[in-house]
């Protein structure tokens, strides 16, 4: 956790100059966060006393069975839903602290199937929507949009003036991501970003997320894809019926494997391979290239 200095350094009301992502990531801590959905009959508890920490610049895979509360947690962290109890600390600051709203604006959330929310007549306008709403000067908006389009592999010269609906599904997904990146998030939350993408587009997205990680952006990735979670994320948080059932480094011990299975998950392919080869699964490779190097 970074201290109050980090909060002071976040320059609450002056947006960072857009450029290559380079600003340090934001730290995140949830303390006893609970949240329920209202329904006619009875409130449905979605999160129950969720506590964990994620240091600035680290990456965390958020996993758990369907309906375990992953999407809800992302929305609470982004501030779209207020926790009933507990608090979300950003760079060590809580909701009562000055500058919290500005910190929340540096948290980007990429929704499930975000391409369903594309609406503007051109790719440029769609990506510019967030920065304009933040009141950035137009020159700064333009530069932020160009950078974001480049980062997601949609060079502005070719794509900025295209109609979003004229793009392929994979291009639309990356355009929606650009709309979030244009606001220069220091903490990026992604909800099932790989769903429905073809394997080639998945590889591109993995590359984009690796570059953001290398630039220091803190990542929280909700996914059912154990292999991509293992390839990208330093740590693991498993939710079960709205509660934290595991938090911290990946655990491939017998108990760790049982815990994954009990939560409708499985071990990553390479961890299982290392186990079955009699090697230490904690040293399992993250990618096929790493695995080949270790085996040849």
């Amino acid at each position, binding site marked *: 956790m970074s201290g109050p200095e980090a909060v002071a350094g976040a320059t609450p009301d002056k947006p960072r100059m857009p450029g290559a992502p380079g600003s340090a990531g934001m730290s995140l801590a949830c303390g006893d966060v609970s949240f329920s959905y209202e*329904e006619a009959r009875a409130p449905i508890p979605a999160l129950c006393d969720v506590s964990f920490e994620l240091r600035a610049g680290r990456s965390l895979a958020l996993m758990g*069975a*369907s309906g375990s509360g992953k999407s809800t947690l992302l929305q609470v962290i982004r501030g779209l839903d207020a926790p009933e109890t507990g608090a979300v600390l950003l760079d060590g600051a809580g909701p009562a602290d000055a500058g919290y709203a500005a910190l929340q604006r540096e948290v980007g959330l990429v929704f499930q199937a975000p391409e369903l929310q594309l609406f503007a007549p051109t790719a440029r306008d769609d990506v510019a929507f967030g920065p304009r709403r933040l009141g950035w000067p137009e020159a700064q908006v333009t530069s932020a949009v160009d950078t974001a389009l480049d980062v997601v592999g949609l060079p502005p010269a070719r794509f900025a003036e295209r109609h979003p609906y004229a793009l392929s599904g994979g291009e639309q997904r990356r355009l929606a991501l650009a709309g979030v990146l244009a606001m220069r998030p220091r903490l990026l939350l992604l909800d099932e970003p790989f769903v429905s993408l*073809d394997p*080639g587009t*998945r590889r591109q997205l993995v590359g984009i997320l690796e570059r953001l990680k290398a630039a220091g952006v803190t990542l929280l990735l909700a996914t059912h894809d154990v292999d991509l979670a293992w390839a990208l994320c330093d740590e693991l948080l498993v939710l079960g019926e709205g509660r934290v059932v595991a938090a911290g480094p990946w655990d491939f011990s017998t108990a760790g494997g049982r815990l994954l299975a009990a939560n*409708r*998950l499985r071990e990553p392919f390479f961890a299982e391979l290392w186990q079955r080869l009699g090697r230490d699964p904690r040293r399992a490779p993250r990618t096929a290239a790493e*695995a080949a190097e270790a085996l*040849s």
Partner: protein
Amino acid sequence: MTDAPLVDISGLHYRYAGAQADALADLELEVHEGEFVAVVGANGSGKSTLARLIGGLEKPAAARHALACGHDLLVEGGRMAARRDVGVLFQNPENQLVAQCVEDDVAFGLENLAWPAADIGRRVDEMLARFGLEELRRREPHMLSGGQKQRTALAGVIAVPRRVLVLDEPTAMLDPAGRDEVLTAVRELRDEGLAIVYITQEMDEAVGADRVVALERGTEVYAGDAGGLFADVALVRRLGLGLPAAGELALALAEQGRDLPGLPLTMDELLDALGGAT
């Protein structure tokens, strides 16, 4: 298997209004009773359009012939009949959930067919159990998670007796255990004699199918077993696809100068190959 295929499409073309090119061009597809065919291809290759056509929801621009369960998809009456006999699960379950709660949604198709209430009740119970939805039966669909919505939509499609099922990425939103459950259900339905068209971006799932069809810009570029597709690495890359993890590792090993016997596509095949090569 000697009977006419349940999906029998030849030379089919389809183009969206205002589009510059065909979404499907000269498409061939045959799926027989009791056959599980995986359809793979990049985003935008025409997979979902194909699902809508087989389900009688779109009119082909032209075709030598286009039959689903023997119904002629080129004429309005045939398409209406196909909508009854072909179950289609769409990619986005949000578009498919219509009722006030999970059990009503699963019952919806049966009510449209005017089944007696007691039969509907029994069938719905069976479907809810099959997909682990019993405890959610009174839940409003918009209060479900993505994976729960997908299971509800699938239960509703399968509740109605069908001869052909078209599933458009049915496991996309599911946790790994849910994915296994759906694949098990698909194999059971195949064994019960249904013809299954299974659209997927998961190469591991394609390996488990009886046959794989690969589309590129609306045209079939491969039809055969999964091993044959993945052995053509240049084609796989051109199509924007990948190999199952075991295959990707075998390729990476070959780049390092270590060739494995054959091309392993599963963990067990990989372990055999590694054992044989050391």
